[in-house]
């Protein structure tokens, strides 16, 4: 993913002979050899300052007893060792139990959201492969949810999910699917998970569509023609041509979707207005609540570090497995 396509073997930094006398060429080589580093300095500094250093500080904070008494001057916070981690992973206590519950909710949410988003994206990309009237319009329309700012999309869904004034209950009532006199709540209780999932899929499937569409453009049409001559039907073409050709795109796409969805904060935060109902208590919201409501930043940091470690392990295993499979294929 991070390697670029360099034509030919790696070349030493200097230019070939026509560059002039040797002494000049030598000076150039030296100057050039640190030019790439100079070019990277601004980007590296920002990434260090805003991501890497705060992350290390976060790890440090997770080892402190950083409660509301020490927040003004956190150099006074006593060192707590792994106490915060002990609390985090003590699944018999209320704190640990809630965290574990939130983890499972997030895992289920991520699996379903990524799965549906990928399937819808694939269906749209495949069915929009063939030219027909209105194709460009549909493509543009399908990308619109991705372009909308997250919060405007989610505020609109919040309105649609209102029990008495929203579109969802109204439409379900018109279709005769619910009892109009006693419509269900969507944003509290059991249904809140479904509501969250619908909003999440609505917002992420266009990204899957965009990537898969880009991937399909690399499929040579001859492959389809060859398989059509072989008498392959729609499903066989999908299985034997489309999906294998999309494998490199899928490898990156599924990982990116997984990470975004697992870390998703914006959707539940806007949909439920700050605190999520228990059935839809995603891990980011849970950690945010544990930190800012109780002002226990040490514990919040320990939970965040645990989350990062989990994501690192999953990503590493995923890349190992998919790369190996790709090599064997």
């Amino acid at each position, binding site marked *: 993913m991070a390697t670029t396509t360099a034509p030919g073997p790696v070349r030493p930094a200097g230019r070939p002979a026509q560059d002039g006398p040797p002494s000049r060429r030598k000076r150039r080589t030296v100057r050039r050899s640190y030019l790439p580093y100079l070019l990277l300095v601004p980007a590296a500094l920002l990434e260090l300052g805003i991501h890497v250093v705060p992350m290390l500080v976060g790890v440090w904070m997770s080892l402190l007893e950083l409660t509301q008494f020490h927040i003004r001057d956190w150099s006074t916070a006593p060192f707590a060792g792994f106490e915060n981690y002990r609390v985090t992973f003590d699944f018999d206590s209320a704190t640990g139990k809630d965290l574990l519950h939130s983890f499972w909710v997030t895992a289920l949410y991520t699996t379903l959201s990524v799965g549906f988003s990928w399937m819808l994206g694939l269906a749209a990309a495949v069915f929009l492969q063939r030219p027909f009237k209105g194709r460009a319009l549909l493509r543009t329309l399908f990308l619109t949810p991705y372009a909308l700012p997250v919060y405007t999309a989610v505020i609109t869904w919040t309105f649609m999910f209102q029990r008495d004034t929203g579109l969802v209950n109204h439409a379900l009532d018109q279709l005769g699917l619910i009892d109009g006199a006693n419509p269900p709540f969507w944003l509290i209780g059991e249904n809140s998970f479904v509501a969250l999932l619908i909003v999440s899929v609505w917002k992420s499937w266009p990204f899957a569509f965009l990537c898969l569409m880009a991937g399909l453009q690399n499929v040579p049409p001859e492959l389809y023609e060859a398989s059509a001559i072989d008498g392959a039907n729609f499903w066989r073409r999908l299985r034997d041509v489309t999906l294998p050709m999309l494998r490199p795109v899928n490898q990156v796409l599924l990982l990116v979707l997984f990470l975004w969805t697992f870390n998703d904060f914006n959707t539940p935060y806007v949909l439920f207005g700050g605190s999520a109902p228990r059935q839809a208590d995603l891990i980011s919201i849970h950690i945010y609540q544990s*930190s800012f409501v109780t002002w226990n930043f040490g514990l919040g940091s320990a939970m965040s570090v645990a989350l990062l470690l989990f994501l690192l392990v999953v990503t590493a295993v995923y890349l190992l497995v998919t790369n190996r499979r790709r090599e064997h294929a």
Partner: protein
Amino acid sequence: MRESTGERWARRIVLSLLTLFVVAPLYVMLSSGLKPLRDVQGPFTWLPSRVTFQPFVDMWQTVPLGRYLVNSLLVASSAAVVSVAIAIFAAFAISRYRFRGRQLFSVTVLSTQMFPGILFLLPLFLIYVNLGNATGIELYASRLGLTITYLTFSLPFSIWMLVGYFDSIPRGLDEAAQVDGAGPLRTLFQVILPTAVPGIVAVTVYAFMTAWGEVLFASVMTDEHSRTLAVGLQGYATQYNVYWNQAMAASVVVSIPVVIGFLALQRYFVAGLTAGAVK
């Protein structure tokens, strides 16, 4: 290759259902902004009882939308411009040079994308507050702090996409310029940048969208004066009343610039993704 009848019907049904799913919220957003308040306080109606533009007028009064809009515009456009400028240099280095640490840099930058935002939100919040106390540079609750934070959010993906674009520009062009005596920076500005304009515009729009739509940091790192739309738009739900028609009207106004920008440039995004994805 002919399309079988079954396939044609499957295509029609699937695409119709998807259209319905995508359009429903867009329709609610567009139509509810034209409804009088009592329409959105009673049971949902598909059409306004009468069409009114009043919500588009009132929305500026209910919450200080003008201020939020200015804040968001300033933060998102400066974050976009600075982030793309920085990404151009970084992408040029990665695309055109082989040097020690090149791989390490690419991997590190991309992997910061994977950090849970919540992990560095708390430390960054404390760092900004303490840095402000120590040096007097207001980073917490200021547009400057928010801008710096946001520009790092779009940086990894911008670099990645620009490397893809730069790689697709033949090196023959660089070499021709160098034979003419152009140094590396002149090559970048006079040969590569003009050729990569569509890619650069697409990346700028992406960076703008990222900053325009961010919620988590905006909700912690801003106060009443530096508040952006992401938080401000939730103000239409007050303790006594929810002005859904105004919230929808404001959503339309806030969405239009980014949606138009993105849709106008969609094919460059596809091109950028293709360039990135084949690697």
